């Protein structure tokens, strides 16, 4: 029972793999069966253009996964580097970098990503860019806080007195100790990114038609909420299952590794 997040995420991985291996034509329009409820021919019914919702969900899952993993990879690297630099160097470098993160944190939630995506224009590449520009801050703050205390550790000071370079100390003596909290933070942020991608696409700022994305599907679903509630329900439950699974996974990792979640 405790393993259910793995089962849920495993299920979606298989779904994405299938949609990559077989071209199930998520964009194929069939005007004979517009907004058809779930039935024999289509597992979860069809959307406003008669497209198969289940197939489009699979394609959208792929987009969500791509966005979440790509943005996490970029921002984890960038944020950790900035945080290490800030925490290890201290002084004016630290003050400047933290001032910058303060400004980014002054924009609540997804507002800054919305603003960036709005001026950059729609599309997958701009969506990725907007999310990368706003998601590194959490990692930077977390790493800096940890680096500040790690700097005082004996093994780091021993390495310093042996003449190890700053880069070597950060890489070999600090980074391994940062891995656990960073992985926990990254897990939570994957859930956040799945929501963020869907939010931007929901607002029409992310993935553009005809490509499927959970956010744009929800947007269409809300439009036809009164006539075809199965549309919204299918997408919403899928999204919720992923977010819930990833969050619970994060809780489990945190408890197992005894990491106190950094408060921002």
């Amino acid at each position, binding site marked *: 029972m405790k393993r259910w997040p793995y089962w849920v995420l495993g299920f979606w991985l298989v779904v994405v793999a299938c949609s990559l291996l077989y071209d199930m034509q998520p964009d194929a329009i069939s005007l004979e069966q517009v907004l058809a409820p779930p039935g024999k021919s289509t597992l979860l019914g069809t959307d406003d253009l008669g497209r198969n919702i289940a197939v489009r969900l699979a394609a959208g899952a792929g987009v969500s996964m791509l966005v979440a993993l790509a943005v996490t990879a970029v921002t984890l690297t960038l944020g950790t580097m900035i945080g290490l630099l800030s925490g290890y160097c201290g002084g004016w470098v630290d003050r400047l970098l933290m*001032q*910058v993160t*303060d*400004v980014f944190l*002054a*924009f*609540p*939630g*997804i*507002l*800054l990503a*919305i*603003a*960036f995506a*709005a*001026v*950059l*224009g729609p599309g997958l590449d701009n969506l990725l860019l907007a999310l990368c520009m706003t998601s590194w801050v959490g990692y930077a703050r977390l790493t800096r806080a940890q680096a500040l205390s790690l700097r005082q550790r004996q093994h780091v000071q021993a390495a310093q007195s042996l003449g190890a370079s700053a880069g070597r100390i950060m890489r070999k003596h600090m980074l391994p100790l940062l891995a656990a909290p960073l992985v926990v933070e990254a897990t939570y942020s994957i*859930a956040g990114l799945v*929501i963020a991608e*869907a*939010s931007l696409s*929901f*607002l*029409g*700022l992310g993935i553009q038609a005809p490509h499927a994305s959970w*956010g744009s599907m*929800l*947007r269409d*679903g*809300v439009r036809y*909420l*009164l006539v075809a*509630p199965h549309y*919204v*329900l299918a*997408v*919403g439950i899928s*999204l*919720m299952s992923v*977010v*819930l699974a990833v*969050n*619970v996974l994060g809780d489990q990792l945190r408890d197992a590794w005894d990491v106190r979640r950094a408060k921002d």
Partner: protein
Amino acid sequence: MIRRLLGVVPVVFGVLLLTFLLVHLVPGDPVEVMLGESAPVADRAKLRAELGLDQPLPLQFVHYLKALAHGDFGRSIHSRKPIADMLRERLPATASLALCALVIAVGLGLPLGIIAALRQGKWQDGLATLLSLTLSAMPHFWLGPLLMLLFALWLGLLPVSGMSEPGAIILPALTLGFGLAAILTRMTRASLLEVLNEDFVRTARAKGIEERKVILRHAMRAALLPIVTVVGLQLGSLLAGTVITETVFGWEGIGRLLVESIEKRDYPVTQACVVVIALSYVVINLLTDLLYVRLDPRVRFAV
């Protein structure tokens, strides 16, 4: 306290700089993007001059700050109305929505958290935890339609969307409030559990004070401190959440204005909305910190 006030200055400056630079992030010529490629050259030149885009960047920023200091956000490209008036028109809708959501969140989150803490390990605790975990996994654009289906379509109790009918505020406020309630429940539970082990709670019980008073008068007062911080921080995400929620429910507030301006490529309006929301967040955080100092005698006397 003065230090905290001064600390806000560079943040506000940074926020203004970043939002000012937004328009310059537009790929290509922002004037062309806003007016469309077919716009006459004269119109473009006029807009360029109006937005000050023909001046050097630092000078533009100075003008931008000066205008903001006078409460002047410029004019909308689309409707030609002063943006300050548009914001003033929309502000009450967003403020009342956020306030209702906050009331719902506190009214739901605090009692649930207290019950969960007092019944730790029992089914009430499990239920509250499950509820808050599920609600926090439901973004507004999914919770909103779900509530619409439930209350408006299947039960037929409340209007689906819009602002004109009475009770129209309930569903968007619930959508915004539930997410915050989920966080508050978890926070209250954790905070109260920590406090319940303290000496002063044992003393209060030993004095023979009623259990209800021990919890509400003694334990909750101490447990409230971290909760105040969370409410302050989350009030900001509530503001950001209005962007999506107002779009879902057709609620004519600042958030909806922001989305409309993005759709019309009316960048000065976009810029103004972002500035207003971000600065409100900065002010709310500042007030929360000041309130915290007032509430906690340990911090108050240490300063």
